[in-house]
């Protein structure tokens, strides 16, 4: 099973390399960045055009409200101003409440101006979303700016999780749960002190995984990540106990 799993991962990595090279080739001389990395919540390797898209992905990774998400690759046909228009949202998110949200990422600050400028695309997407019974959301640079700290912290978090990809984090997750159950409001330092220092990186990776799963709530949106990051078992977990 392990061999099979490793083979699948290697295959995924290989596919992502093709995507990356294709993205760089597609960019040509145009002035935007191409980002690549691993998205643990979505469990895929990404190759994204443009920094705002990447920041949005990190935000989605760290947003406790989002349970899962995908980056669509197929164009859906919606209804624009002048008839049918092909469109593709930048992300489709499944929220913890069960609702589905289509998201379109744009660099402009002013949403109204943006709607005017990209009216055909926006109109097609909103109509299509309405037809499919999902909500549609425009993510602008202003939205990303508001989440600057969370994104910065989760950048580190993703690095920890990705580096620990080939490790089984389940035992560490249960260790962390044990610490948090005994002491309801803890900081990261207390979790690390409870176990041997060799496993610090894996414990941190497991902590980020638990935050991602919604089992732990933290103050990553308010304070820079560090040893004093507050960790608290979520109400669902406490209720289950």
């Amino acid at each position, binding site marked *: 099973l392990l061999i099979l799993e490793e083979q699948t991962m290697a295959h995924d990595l290989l596919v992502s390399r093709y995507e990356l090279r294709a993205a760089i080739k597609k960019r040509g001389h145009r002035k935007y960045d191409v980002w690549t*990395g691993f998205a643990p919540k979505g469990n895929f390797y990404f190759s994204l055009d443009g920094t705002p898209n990447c920041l949005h992905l990190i935000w989605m990774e760290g947003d406790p409200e989002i349970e899962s998400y995908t980056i669509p690759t197929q164009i859906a046909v919606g209804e624009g101003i002048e008839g049918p228009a092909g469109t593709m949202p930048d992300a489709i998110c499944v929220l913890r409440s069960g609702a589905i949200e289509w998201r379109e990422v744009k660099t402009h600050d002013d949403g109204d101006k943006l709607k005017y400028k990209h009216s055909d695309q926006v109109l097609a997407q909103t109509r299509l979303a309405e037809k499919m019974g999902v909500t549609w959301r425009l993510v602008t640079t202003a939205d990303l700016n508001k989440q*600057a700290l969370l994104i910065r912290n989760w*950048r580190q978090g993703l690095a920890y999780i990705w580096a620990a*990809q080939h490790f089984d984090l389940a035992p560490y997750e249960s260790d962390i749960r044990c610490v948090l159950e005994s002491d309801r409001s803890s900081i990261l330092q207390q979790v690390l002190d409870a176990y041997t220092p060799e496993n610090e990186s894996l414990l941190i990776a497991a902590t980020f995984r638990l935050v991602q799963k919604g089992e732990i709530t933290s103050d990553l949106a308010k304070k820079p990540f560090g040893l004093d990051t507050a960790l608290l078992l979520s109400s669902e977990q406490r209720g289950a106990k």
Partner: protein
Amino acid sequence: VTSRLCRGQVALADRRTWEWQRPDTSGWTIAQQQRYQRFERALVDYLANEKVQVIEKRYSLRISQVQEQLARAMTKDVKGHLLGFCALIPSLHVRVQKRVKAMPAGPNPSAPMCKGGLRRLLDDEDLYDALEARVLGADARTREARVTVLSIQKWLVTELCERGYKPTDYPFTTKIPLYSSLSRLLKRIKQENMAAYLKVYGQGLQATNLDVMSGKGSRMARPLPLEEVEIDEHKLHGIAVVRIMVDGIVKKVPAERAVGIAIIDRGSHSVLGAAVCLNPEAKAEALVEAMRSAVGPDHVVKLPSGQPAPPFRPGDFDPALKGAAWSVAFIDNAKIHVGDQYLAAAARIGSQTCYGPIRSWSARPNIENLFSRLVRGKFDRLPSTTSRFTDSKRGQAPADRAIAHEIDHDKICLAFYKVLGQANTGTNRGLLNQSPIQVLSD
């Protein structure tokens, strides 16, 4: 005429200010003690080869004043001992000289006339302090979300117009626009008070960073240490000879170019790791080797001869800084950067990678600065094998000259690693005159 003494004229043995005798200042007034302290520190800094400009600015003294006191400190008493700091008598007379320059006048004053004019104008009108407070956000009432030259210019023009300045008066008459003079002044105020500025606008600058990443504005704040790195390769435009054994005889043959690879941290400007690839083009193995040198706490960087390289990484100077990892790497679109080996290594670190657009060196300023410094400082002066000028009119053939210089791979690697070490240990103006290692240690 007061005699003066330059530090170059003082013998090295006499420069040991920590051995100089000090006066008993307990009976002095506070003002006298403060004046004494100021001169004492200035003398210590001056003899420690601190820059003259820095001393003048730090202690508000002209260097001639310091030199006068140095001459007095160097005089010997009846026992033949140096007076040292005892020469700094309590009633030390300090003259404050202010050079007075007339304000620019006429319809189109020239650039030399205008030099420093804006500052003088602001001083005359008592507006400089208000301007400084506005730039640094010291006053909550006038603080803006973001300090822009345009908003400051609007405020200043309004103030000056209210005070009766006309379009025919300075600063509206110059060929140099007020905007650019003001921009320079603002930059200087920010640089001089960087700590205060970041304290107020630090959070805002984080947001600005995101704006910048999405292609807006200019970058103002730097990321945290060990968060973002820049990786790049540069051909070391030197020439190398290698010794080979042919039929039992050692022969020297010109080698191909070498390529240096470095990893530099954006937050602390420190060089985390490096490697030299002895090939005309960098190879993926060398790139991975450079990453390994940064990440591995016990990794030993070796010269081609097998000898250990001189210390250059932060971990070589401070064991607590051994082993670095980063969240994001900014690199260009070189072939080896999209290769399997690099991507596998990045996956092991967990680092996301940002591939900047082609010909966008400004997206990776730190590494480009480092390489330009490296190449200008060390490698361009070496003879080049790539030159086609081999005729006798232009002197000896480059390859022959290389052999004459005996520049082998070891020397090239040594030069490379030493420059990286200097970059890590030397002070950096962008880091508020701290060295990258100090920043990392903090």
